[in-house]
């Protein structure tokens, strides 16, 4: 549903952009002919008519766009899954660029490999040194393949743990961004201890004395998401989803039919609102209408405000209180 609407909206975006640049051209031509922009309206009747027609066209296109966007007010869970997976959604690299300064990337688990599906390092958030990391997907098919579609191997989780252990050592808050179809299901991943790597992260993350904030920005599926998401505060973008596994996987396990995805989406309680009610998500970050991909600036501003609010609260607690706060958050669920 949402995909069809967005198609129309994006077509209108393009038309509006074109019309606006034409109008700018007309205006520029008039200014050249007359000498100053103030005189344009007064002196060139023809030009004025032309200019007016263009503006009328633009406002017509814009109101059409408003009409379609209004339909995005009531999204189904399946619509949100679509938006959560949108290829142009802001990803961890965009977010680090947008919210952090002075980023120093740290590579590798220092054991076996550098898993590029986890991206992270040290940076400043509001001037404070923090450890920041997240699943990396990339926006193009080339990048998707390079980053394994955001599906980490054990090496990725061990890299994440290495970075987080340092955050604990140097008393830096940890901020993680979650966006993954799940942990990578591969033969080598099993041989290298995918299960052990995830379990170790869950165990170690629960014990940290520094604040941990996790933001689910896209899709958060399975232990592959949770492995960097044992946090004091779990925040979700409005259209992000968080679940035991992908709706397709869910349908295929439950009904042996991955086509019953929309049914699964309804049942799984995977939206931010559902999860807030369940006590899994602590706060929801608003997205622009039509999805985060439509305006990065707004998303970044909203994310910044909500993360900063929670971080300031957590920084008032003592190290032991921070740890107990996290342990008791998970103790209370279920």
């Amino acid at each position, binding site marked *: 549903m949402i995909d069809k609407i967005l198609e129309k909206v994006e077509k209108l975006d393009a038309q509006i952009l074109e019309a606006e640049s034409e109008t700018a051209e007309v205006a520029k031509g008039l200014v050249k002919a007359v000498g100053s922009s103030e005189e344009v309206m007064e002196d060139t009747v023809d030009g004025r008519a032309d200019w007016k027609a263009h503006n009328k066209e633009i406002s017509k296109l814009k109101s059409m766009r408003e009409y379609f966007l209004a339909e995005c007010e009531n999204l189904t869970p399946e619509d949100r899954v679509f938006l959560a997976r949108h290829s142009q959604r802001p990803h961890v690299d965009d977010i680090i660029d947008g919210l952090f300064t002075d980023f120093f990337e740290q590579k590798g688990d220092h054991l076996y490999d550098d*898993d590029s599906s986890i991206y992270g390092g040290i940076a400043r958030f509001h001037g404070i*040194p923090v450890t920041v990391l997240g699943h990396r997907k990339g926006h193009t098919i080339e990048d998707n393949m390079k980053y394994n579609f955001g599906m980490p191997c054990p090496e990725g989780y061990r890299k994440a743990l290495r970075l987080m252990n340092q955050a604990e050592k140097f008393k830096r808050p940890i901020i993680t961004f979650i966006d993954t179809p799940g942990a990578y299901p591969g033969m080598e991943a099993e041989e290298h201890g995918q299960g052990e790597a995830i379990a170790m992260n869950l165990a170690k993350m629960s014990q940290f004395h520094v604040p941990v904030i996790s933001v689910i920005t896209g899709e958060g599926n399975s232990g592959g998401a949770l492995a960097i998401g044992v946090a004091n505060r779990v925040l979700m973008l409005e259209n992000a989803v968080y679940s035991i596994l992908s709706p397709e996987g869910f349908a295929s396990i439950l009904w042996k039919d991955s086509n019953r995805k929309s049914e699964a989406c309804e049942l799984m309680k995977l939206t931010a609102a559902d999860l807030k009610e369940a006590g899994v998500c602590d706060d929801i970050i608003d997205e622009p209408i039509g999805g985060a991909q439509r305006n990065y600036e707004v998303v970044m501003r909203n994310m910044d405000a909500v993360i900063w609010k929670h971080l300031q609260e957590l920084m008032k607690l003592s190290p032991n209180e921070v740890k107990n706060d996290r342990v008791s958050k998970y103790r209370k669920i279920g």
Partner: protein
Amino acid sequence: MESLLNTISLSFVSKNVIEEEIEKKDGEPVFVTCKKCKRRSLKRNWKDNYYVCPNCGKYRSISAQYRMSLIFDPGSYKEINAHMKANDPMKFPEYAQKLEKQKNDTGLEEAAVTAVGKIGGHKTTVVVLDSRFFMGSMSTVVGEKVTRAVEYATKKKTPLIIFSASGGARMQEGIYSLMQMAKTSAAIEEFHATGGLYISFLTHPTTGGVTASFATLGDITLAEPGALIGFAGPRVIEQTINKKLPKGFQKSEYLEAHGFVDKIVPRNEMRDTLIQLLDLHQK
């Protein structure tokens, strides 16, 4: 006032004269040939390029003192444990003479130079292994100097930076050399326990016992481009498996791809990168 001005201008003159002497011999400019591309460049150009070949980018080894002058805030550092002299614990044949020759050739007492000073205003303990002295191999004195520097950083709560460059164990010191791996590793672990920042900077070559001890125990591991880094040397491996190793095996870039190096840092970015990291870890 006038005399002060004179002193300043005089010191400028004398500095220029010294540089002229280095770069010119008998009035002729001095050229240095690159070992890799075999092309020669003016000594001045090598120096301006931090001793990276102006033609092909190959890194030349640099002395410990020169590296320290590149990273510390000017005039801010002093050497520690400078007096420690090389040891001959096994009374190994001809070792004493070889040590004497190395000392004369390099002007160093041992392969490790340790110092304390400021980097971007941060008081920092620094160890540099100088590969010109016995290939930077780990002797008892190298182990002791590294350990004392780490202990100094622990006690004074300064960050620690170690530039490794080592052919491995000092064969002439046998088991005593081996034990330095345990000693330095234990010191590093105690340093970590106090919350100190340790940046391990790997330079060409970092191998053997140094790789298998303090060089790989950093919070942050940096490397110079194209450095050979490994435990067993490539020739030993090739002979063992009776196969040719792939191109680039055990080079910095290979290690980065395999998850052991956080970042490869060109020499001209070395100081700025260290300052960024020290700033980020400021307490």
